[in-house]
């Protein structure tokens, strides 16, 4: 549990789980979970490569700080959309939300 390959393997597993969730789930909240998991896989990769392959710079950590803040903003917007969709449709199944279709 202390070489770069180990961390990249964990990140790859998280990314695979996220892809699986995106493909199979139809519940908007589960989709949000899957997206968060994939964002975390990407952040883990950033930190791992930045910490192992550079002797002294913090660019990887800085990028992850920005990424976490962006993900928080994205989660807030998605949750607001979920609440509005629930108020309009009493459900958050994305295959049922078709009111924007022509």
């Amino acid at each position, binding site marked *: *549990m*202390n*070489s*770069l*390959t180990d*961390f*990249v*393997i964990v*990140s*790859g*597993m*998280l*990314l*695979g*789980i*996220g*892809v*699986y*969730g*995106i*493909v*199979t*789930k139809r*519940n908007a*909240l*589960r989709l*949000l*979970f899957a997206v*968060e*998991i994939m964002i*975390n896989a990407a952040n883990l990769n950033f*930190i*791992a490569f930045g*910490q192992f392959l550079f*002797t*002294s*710079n*913090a*660019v*990887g*950590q*800085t990028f992850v*700080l*920005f990424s*976490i803040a*962006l*993900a*928080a*903003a*994205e*989660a*807030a*917007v998605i*949750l*607001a*959309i*979920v*609440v*509005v969709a*629930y108020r309009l449709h009493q459900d958050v199944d994305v295959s049922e939300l078709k009111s924007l279709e022509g």
Partner: protein
Amino acid sequence: MAVVTVGGALVALEADEIVYGAIGLAGSLFGVATLFFLLNAPYVAVFQVTVYVGAVAVLILFTVMLVRQEKWAKEVAPTSWTKIVGALSGLAVAAAVIFAAVSTNFGSDTSLQNTAGFLEIGQLISTGYAPVLEVLALVLAASIIGALTLSRADKEEPGE
């Protein structure tokens, strides 16, 4: 900690009760934070705990409780065909990344050698990446305003 991280992610997607899924997601995010600690990046780890485990997970938990329905517990399972395709694509992505990681030679010295800490992060954020910080602040403000507007859009104004 890798087990906690990956297991929490699986629980988040597969738990029957979606509240347990939200808790599993929080566990997974916490596992990622501990991996950041192991990677010698304590500042990012603490940031992850406060923002993700502290704020986002609680936000998700509240929304889940607001919109939760009993019928989700016995949710219409996606057709097995969809599930197989999803599992295959997930496995394919994971296998590709893992194969690439295992078969790549990351240079001669791959021990943890980065000692950059708070000072370097602060200097980077406040000098070279200051425009990014400004734009990020605008994005955050816009998203918060958007979220507030969305969630009160169809409320009747009392005076009209």
